[in-house]
């Protein structure tokens, strides 16, 4: 749930106009063209920096309050928990990788799990604090690895995060995607209890990416593999890495009869169209809201969003008044 999600649309600076420009300027001396290019580059960088600033704060809030996003995140969290296949009725301590603003954490709270969450975006963690999730939050770059003692967690989930490990942040060797992936999976593997599972939903941009990531996970010692839900639906298709430590030891329904070796069978992906599950999804949401109301954690009438909106309105009004004032005087 990294906020960098919002950058994608703005990252295409369209190189075409630049080449056109340089073509037009071939009559002029080479140096003036170069100067122009440098100026254009500086302006572009400035714009990108401003955009990044803006998204840091505003988008973190927007992302969290968008109901469609919320619903998709919630669905994937429930599905990840299902794939985690924890022993029923037993308390567990989980790791939420890229916990963001706590959308998945809230569900972990409601389901009665204790958890710790890590995220690299301070603005998202701030929203998580305001939502008063129960888990401990860490500001951490998962590509730098975890420092948790061996066997700390009974399972790990991650929703829409690990594709970001494929971006190189700088040219330093420790920030190359293979190095970051390897560091992430090795330290995650050792933080997990044996047997247990990690279920990581992510958005790959190609099958090669899926194979690459799964390959690094295997090298780090994980069993398991890739589970694809709704593989034939363009909209509903979801990719989960379902990773096993020490055989994956499901305490669940005994779905996988590993035949003595103890390695669990990889769960099957969901088939059919997304629409089929629409009813279930809304039922879950209703249940969630009912549970919330019962739990006394009912949403305050004048919540954060309300206050922010009010503030914005007031500011707008002030500006309007100032504008009018100037006109009158």
């Amino acid at each position: 749930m990294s906020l960098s999600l919002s950058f994608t649309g703005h990252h295409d600076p369209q190189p075409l106009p630049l080449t056109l420009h340089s073509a037009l300027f071939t009559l002029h001396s080479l140096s003036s063209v170069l100067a122009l290019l440098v100026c254009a580059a500086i302006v572009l960088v400035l714009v990108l920096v401003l955009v990044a600033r803006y998204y840091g704060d505003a988008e973190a809030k927007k992302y969290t309050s968008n109901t469609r996003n919320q619903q998709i995140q919630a669905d994937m969290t429930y599905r990840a928990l299902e794939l985690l296949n924890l022993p029923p009725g037993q308390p567990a301590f989980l790791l939420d990788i890229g916990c963001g603003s706590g959308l998945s954490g809230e569900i972990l709270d409601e389901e009665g799990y204790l958890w710790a969450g890590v995220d690299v975006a301070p603005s998202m963690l701030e929203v998580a604090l305001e939502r008063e999730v129960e888990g401990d939050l860490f500001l951490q770059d998962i590509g730098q690895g975890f420092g948790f003692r061996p066997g700390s967690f009974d399972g790990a989930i991650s929703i829409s995060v690990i594709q970001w490990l494929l971006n190189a942040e700088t040219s330093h060797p420790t920030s190359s995607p293979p190095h970051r992936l390897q560091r992430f999976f090795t330290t995650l593997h050792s933080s997990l209890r044996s047997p247990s599972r990690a279920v990581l939903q992510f958005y790959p941009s190609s099958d090669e990416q899926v194979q690459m990531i799964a390959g690094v996970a295997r090298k780090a010692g994980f069993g398991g593999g890739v589970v694809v839900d709704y593989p034939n639906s363009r909209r509903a298709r979801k990719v989960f890495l379902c990773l096993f430590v020490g055989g994956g030891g499901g305490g669940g329904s005994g779905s996988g009869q590993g035949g003595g070796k103890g390695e669990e069978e990889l769960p099957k992906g969901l088939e059919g169209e997304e629409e089929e599950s629409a009813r279930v999804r809304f039922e879950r949401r209703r249940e969630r809201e009912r549970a919330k109301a019962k739990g006394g954690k009912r949403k305050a009438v004048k919540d954060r969003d309300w206050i922010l909106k009010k503030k914005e309105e007031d500011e707008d009004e002030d500006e309007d008044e100032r504008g009018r004032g100037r006109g009158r005087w």
Partner: protein
Amino acid sequence: MVRLITHNLLACHAKDCNTNNFPLEFKDVQLEIREADFNPDFLKGFMPKIEWKALVDTARQLGDTSLPLEQPEMLDDEFLKNLHHVLLEIHVEEGSMTCPNCKHVYPISNGIPNMLLAEHEIG
């Protein structure tokens, strides 16, 4: 929101810092006590994961002396309630954690520890 349950699991993850890197040492802390639901089953299940000496030492450093120096074999209700309080209700809101080995400082602000490493510290 660093509770002692996570502090007890957390070692330093800086490059080549592999020994004597636990427990991280709290400094200049501000605490907050927040009630949490008492769940004896969770505590019993969690007991084997605890580094007992580190937990007792840290709790004492933060002013809670309710836990015995040796991990008891009989888990009575009073002990579990004390353990519950130490693990889940003491929150460190401000301050820092220092690695006993490499001396890396992880600052805690607004309840969130900053675990980010500089480039040369990444393993």
